[in-house]
């Protein structure tokens, strides 16, 4: 009896431990399969051809610069929309809103995070893009700007929830100190609370931008899908094509193992590395600030 109990305990503990380590296994597996299917591109197509400005796979032009620039410009636009809205809303929820308002706003922002991206894309096609076409007098409403607006909406919930956590974690004594010195509520927010929560707010912004880079369905539906190099400011109001949209739109039609197939995996690998970079930097900010807080407390 005693023995079988401890054996069961042993097996269960091992199973739980293996589950814990599975996260590492999955990241490794994902990286491995992206490398396996993506790396052949380097010999099949070559670096110089990849760093070209023409994406036209039917005639074997695999220049990924237009796609990179498309992703960059849409994400930049999304950041311009999402950072002020996200940080502002986080400040409002954490510092200004009365309690009942907070209880309404937090679930609503979470709801935005849960809205399927395909629903946002659908509304983008039907409402946002026709409106922008008329309002900005453009030949088409399916532009990088339309994508930026909607992607901004997708990045906002991430920024709000992380930034709000960070603001919430600022000790009450900080604020009381500022009030006692005669600062107004507003001055306290700007000069004490926000600076104290800086690293957390930055983490939220980075994670939000990371989400925007990786978003697929919405951008595929509303950015017009034209793989042209987008380097001027005016490109924001022209159709573009992002890396994610390219994979989603073309993977269904390529033969497994073909050159085109390998290039699409190569683009996926690039996206994976970008998200890895964003997340490692963002999390190192978290770890650092935690250590600092521990030092202060000890």
């Amino acid at each position, binding site marked *: 009896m005693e023995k079988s109990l401890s054996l*069961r305990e042993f097996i269960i503990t091992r199973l739980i431990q293996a589950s814990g380590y599975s996260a590492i296994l999955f990241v490794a597996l994902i990286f491995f399969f992206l490398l396996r299917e993506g790396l052949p591109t380097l010999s099949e197509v070559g670096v110089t051809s990849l760093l070209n400005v023409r994406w036209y796979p039917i005639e074997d032009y695999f220049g990924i610069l237009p796609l990179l620039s498309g992703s960059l410009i849409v994400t930049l636009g999304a950041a311009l929309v999402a950072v002020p809205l996200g940080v502002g809303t986080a400040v409002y929820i954490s510092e200004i809103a009365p309690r009942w308002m907070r209880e309404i706003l937090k679930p609503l922002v979470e709801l935005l995070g*849960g809205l399927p*991206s395909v629903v946002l894309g659908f509304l983008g096609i039907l409402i946002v893009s026709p409106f922008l076409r008329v309002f900005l007098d453009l030949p088409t409403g399916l532009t990088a700007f339309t994508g930026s607006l909607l992607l901004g909406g997708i990045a906002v919930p991430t920024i709000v929830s992380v930034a709000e956590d960070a603001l919430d974690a600022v000790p009450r004594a900080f604020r009381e100190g500022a009030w006692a010195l005669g600062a107004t509520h507003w001055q306290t927010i700007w000069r004490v609370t926000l600076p104290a929560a800086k690293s957390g707010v930055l983490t939220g912004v980075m994670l939000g931008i990371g989400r925007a880079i990786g978003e697929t369905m919405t951008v595929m539906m509303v950015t017009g899908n034209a793989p042209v190099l987008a380097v001027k400011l005016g490109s924001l109001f022209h159709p573009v094509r992002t890396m994610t949209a390219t994979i989603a739109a073309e993977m269904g039609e390529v033969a497994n193992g073909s050159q085109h197939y390998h290039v699409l995996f190569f683009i*996926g690998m690039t996206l994976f590395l970008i998200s890895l970079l964003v997340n490692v930097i963002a999390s190192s900010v978290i770890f650092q600030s935690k250590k600092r807080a521990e030092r202060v407390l000890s």
Partner: protein
Amino acid sequence: MLLKLFSRNRHTVQKLGFTLITLVAVITVLPIVGTVIFILVKGGSALSLEFLTGFPRDGMRAGGILPAIIGTLYLTFGTALFSVPLGIAAAIYLAEYAKDNRATRAIRLAIINLAGIPSVVYGLFGLGLFVLFLKLGTSILAASLTLSIMTLPVIISTAEEAIRSVPQSFRTVSISLGATRWQTIRRIVLKEALPGILTGVILGLERAAGETAPILFTGAAFFLPRLPNSPFDATMALPYHLFVISTQVPEMPIQIQYGTALVLLIFVLTMNIVATVIRSRARAKRQW
């Protein structure tokens, strides 16, 4: 005099600032509410028994969306089958067993990275590993496995937080009464942490139910005139169907598009509301 002016100025700035920030919050929230109400109103008139229980006809321009509804149910259920046990076990490991060492930090970093990987990259991975390498084909099984790895980080992190919030004294008492570590976890800790874990599970599955990109090449079918009859069949799914009928099919009646968007929204909203209610109820009831 000067001081008075200055102090009035400060308060004007504060008033302006508060108005601005409030405005920002309103600008953020209004479109969310607007979106939901708009789809509810526009899609409401498309809902009918035939729409919910019928098969698509006329190149999907008429009839119902039953295969897509059932497909999304299958995919969500399949995802839960893999990600819930694995996610909760991983959360138990991190909260109860893991020491604060390099290996644990590596696990945490891996989870953060899993959460950040673009959904379409999960699609590629699923295609490479499940569809081609393990030869599962484009199937419900391959798509569910792909989605479950994607939802894992959400489930692990919320479940871990819920388990950690159970007071240490509960464990101490249980162990001192002669229970083993696993008995303590199963009968005391998990029981207390259940509402929090459930919230995380539902939020994770909500994401899976609404995703399109990961199932594009792993299990989604453009059109199926019947229901899938094994886990090795491809399936229609609500999000992919909405994508198809709003971009790929010409002369698509707008009613069907709004109706499909509404059904998908109801799916997601229901899960969201259930999760919120469970969480707030648990918080209100908690006595420690």
